[in-house]
């Protein structure tokens, strides 16, 4: 089996579809033209509002084998995916391909519909139980496909994934289909993940619980792309947005990592006027950002922009004048949603603006530094964000690949031990992001500098920061916890991990036993 540029065996085809192995972060030169949706028209006075999801499903002609898409802006509070799949099941539709941006633990009931053959393929991030279920193998007709935010946009745009029906949960919409997530009783922040779905799908259904008089503004989703508008009692639960670690950590170990990460980018001279940065919503990233914010305030430095996932911490930085603008693709807490309404320089961006490989500019390419996480890293600086060391597929890619590719300095923050499991491996279980786009790996035991960045090594050394090798830190952690048994993988491929350009950087195989 041929190996790709990070040494992973990639089959030439899966289920009759040829796979292109990953060649390098920027090796692919796109060819051809963009895909195109069908031409449609409407006459004045036509009514788009339908009484139920079932009616919309009938009108668009949703049938066996089709692809349906969703955004994940409600995160763990999403209600629409299950409602649509349940409706399809009731109507006898089967063999669906699900194309959400991401699934969360709240989607666990999907497992039943997979077992019943209603859903037979999934292309999208899977956080939690659905991913664990898929890992067990033999469940889906084809391997799941995981893409980054930018990668998903690209796949739609080039026609790699054709969406039959896009369902768009809209906290606010008008009868003509203009829609946004900023307003309404269940506002969730941007719903711009669905923008490419609205542009390219054959049929577009906006689902809302807050129908407002024309025009619903801003129109993140525009009327010209929308076929039908359906009202429901509740479109999603914003309480599910702020799940996981969206607070600054209190753990001494994590705070130490955050401190080192912040000190590293300060030592590299990146905290300066006009900088751009991205902070994830993990506890360590937030703490590192907080340390940076303090340093900025102390020195009177102002960032030009920050990219979200947006939390209240980032919102506060904008309010205090530490950040000139927030480019927001996703809200991570209620305060971020409020702030989007209040502040003119807190603006919504699409995944295309953010991260599309086949474009003439990504916001991530303007980043000076970014803090990202991972489940594992290895001695080649590769990062795994998808699987755990036991082989379970439990997380999506998010913007990881896109941000790492773009930022001048990509900082991975990771404790060397998580619940006894060592995170620095000789070789990661799954490569999500290749070492060639990773600059620093920061743990509680020190900072590893990618050998491609001797300049950074010098900056860190001069600042007296603890520069270590990954091998030293790996060995130290292993002395504490001992060697973990590794899973044995079979031949069956349960998921493909795409690089953002559409090539395959790794595959996830079914676990068949333990060494």
């Amino acid at each position, binding site marked *: 089996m041929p190996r790709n540029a990070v040494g992973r065996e990639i089959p030439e085809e899966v289920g009759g579809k040829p796979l292109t192995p990953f060649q390098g972060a920027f090796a692919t030169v796109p060819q051809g033209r963009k895909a195109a949706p069908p031409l449609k028209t409407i006459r004045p006075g036509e009514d788009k509002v339908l009484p139920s999801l079932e009616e919309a499903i009938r009108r668009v002609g949703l049938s066996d084998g089709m692809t349906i898409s969703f955004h994940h802006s409600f995160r763990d509070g999403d209600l629409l995916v299950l409602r649509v799949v349940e409706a399809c099941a009731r109507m006898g539709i089967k063999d669906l391909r699900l194309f959400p941006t991401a699934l969360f633990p709240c989607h666990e009931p999907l497992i039943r519909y997979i077992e019943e053959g209603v859903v037979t393929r999934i292309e999208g991030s899977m956080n939690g139980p659905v991913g664990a279920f898929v890992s067990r193998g033999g469940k889906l007709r084809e391997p799941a496909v995981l893409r980054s935010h930018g990668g998903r946009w690209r796949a739609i745009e080039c026609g790699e994934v054709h969406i039959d029906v896009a369902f768009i949960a809209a906290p606010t919409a008008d009868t003509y289909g203009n829609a946004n997530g900023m307003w309404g009783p269940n506002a969730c922040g941007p719903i711009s993940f669905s923008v490419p779905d609205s542009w390219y799908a054959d049929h577009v259904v906006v689902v809302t619980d807050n129908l407002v008089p024309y025009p619903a503004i801003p129109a993140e989703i525009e009327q010209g792309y929308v076929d039908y508008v359906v009202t429901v009692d509740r479109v999603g639960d914003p309480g599910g947005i702020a799940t996981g670690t969206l607070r600054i950590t209190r753990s001494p*170990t994590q705070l130490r990592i955050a401190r080192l990460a912040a000190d590293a980018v300060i030592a590299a001279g990146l905290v300066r006027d006009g900088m751009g940065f991205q902070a994830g919503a993990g506890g360590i990233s937030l703490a590192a950002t907080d340390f940076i914010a303090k340093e900025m305030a102390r020195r009177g430095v102002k960032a030009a922009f920050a990219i979200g996932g947006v939390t209240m911490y980032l919102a506060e930085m904008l309010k205090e004048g530490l950040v000139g603008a927030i480019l927001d693709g996703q809200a991570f807490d209620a305060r971020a949603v409020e702030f989007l309404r209040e502040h003119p320089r807190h603006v919504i961006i699409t995944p295309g603006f953010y991260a599309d490989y086949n474009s003439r500019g990504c916001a991530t390419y303007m980043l000076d530094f970014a803090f990202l996480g991972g489940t594992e890293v290895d001695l080649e600086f590769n990062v795994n964000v998808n699987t755990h*060391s036991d082989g379970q597929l439990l997380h999506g890619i998010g913007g990881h690949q896109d941000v790492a590719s773009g930022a001048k300095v990509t900082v991975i923050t990771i404790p060397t031990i998580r619940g006894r499991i060592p995170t620095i491996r000789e070789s990661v279980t799954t490569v999500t992001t290749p070492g060639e786009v990773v600059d620093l790996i920061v743990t509680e035991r020190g900072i590893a500098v990618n050998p491609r960045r001797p300049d950074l090594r010098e900056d860190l050394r001069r600042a007296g920061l603890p520069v270590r090798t990954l091998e030293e830190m790996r060995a130290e952690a292993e002395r504490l*916890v001992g060697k973990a048994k590794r899973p044995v993988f079979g031949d069956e491929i349960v998921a493909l991990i795409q690089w953002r350009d559409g090539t395959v950087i790794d595959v996830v195989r079914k676990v068949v036993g333990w060494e």
Partner: protein
Amino acid sequence: MELVREASCGSDERSDAWVSVRPADAISVHIASKTGPMYEDRIREVVEGTLRAMGVTGAEVKVREQGAYDHVIRARLLCALKRAGEDGEAFRRPMPIQVAREGTPKGRLRRSRLYVPGNNARVLAFVDVFGPDCVILDLEDSVPPAEKDAARFLVREILSSMDFGDTEIWVRINPLPRGGREDLEAVLLGRPHGICLPKAESPVEVAELAGFLYELEGRYGIPWLVWIMPIIESPKGVLAAPEIAKASERVVCLAFGAEDYTAEVGCERSWEALLWARSGIVAAAAAAGIQASDTVYPDIEDEEGLYEEAKRAKALGFDGKGAIHPLQIESIHRAFAPTPEELEWAKGVVAAAEEAERKGHGAVAYRGKMVDRPVVARAKRILEMARAMGMEVGDAA
């Protein structure tokens, strides 16, 4: 040893293990591991190996663990066995030492001493990474009475299996009449560098502790003198500080504990109210030629307040300060760092002393002033501290 009753030890907290044992005809081990199959075999080996070492031939053992390291599982098992059996002697046999450790110089850097609760596996899991000059594994105030035995085993296992690098490793025991002796018997097996004696009020206690240490060093084959750090935390202690400091050659540092002191005196926890106690402790330590370490700063959030207080402690003559959270270490080290002026002065004094020695002069002069021997020692100490902090010192000794 034989088990006579059912007993358990530990918790379901992260990085901890809950272990139960009960008498049985043969050995059986049941494991529920947070990490699934990844460490199950290894945990079984640890359990069976420990049972063998303790001479247990019949026991039903249950382990429920949340990512606990080997030494935590071993500690919880040992404590459960002790609670289930009658034989105390089996627990005093030396265990194999798993990390190399050497004694430390009497006058080494002790800018920061970090207190860590001795029975908290979650906090202890990363205790080796924070880089204070001294770590103090605590058996006293942070451990509830019912868990003292569990903490002893945990601290002992951590001492014998974790490599602390350049950090000096201490144990704060309970007062000698209230469990301190049992603490010593258990933890000395792990070979710490020193013992903190809480609520020290008289030289007699210190001498008594020194006697115990002498005996246990012999019994357990510890090749260095185990140091003593009396903690002065009462008015009586402050008054006796000069004698306490000189009570044993093992005493290397007097530490101040302000919490109990303020309560007993009925004063505020302000700089002014504590100034006399601080000054007394510094003077007593200086008179005995040992170090003094200031009390902890209780507000973890207030980095600047800590830094300011540490600066004042340094100005008063303290050599270090206590920390109750790892994030306090940096502020403390920053405060105790020599200033550029101090550094320049120290370099000059040391150079002058070396020059005088080369020329065979008895007296040393620097910038037209006579310099006494203690002043030279202080200058050398500043250079040593600067070097330890990675500051540019040059080749002055």
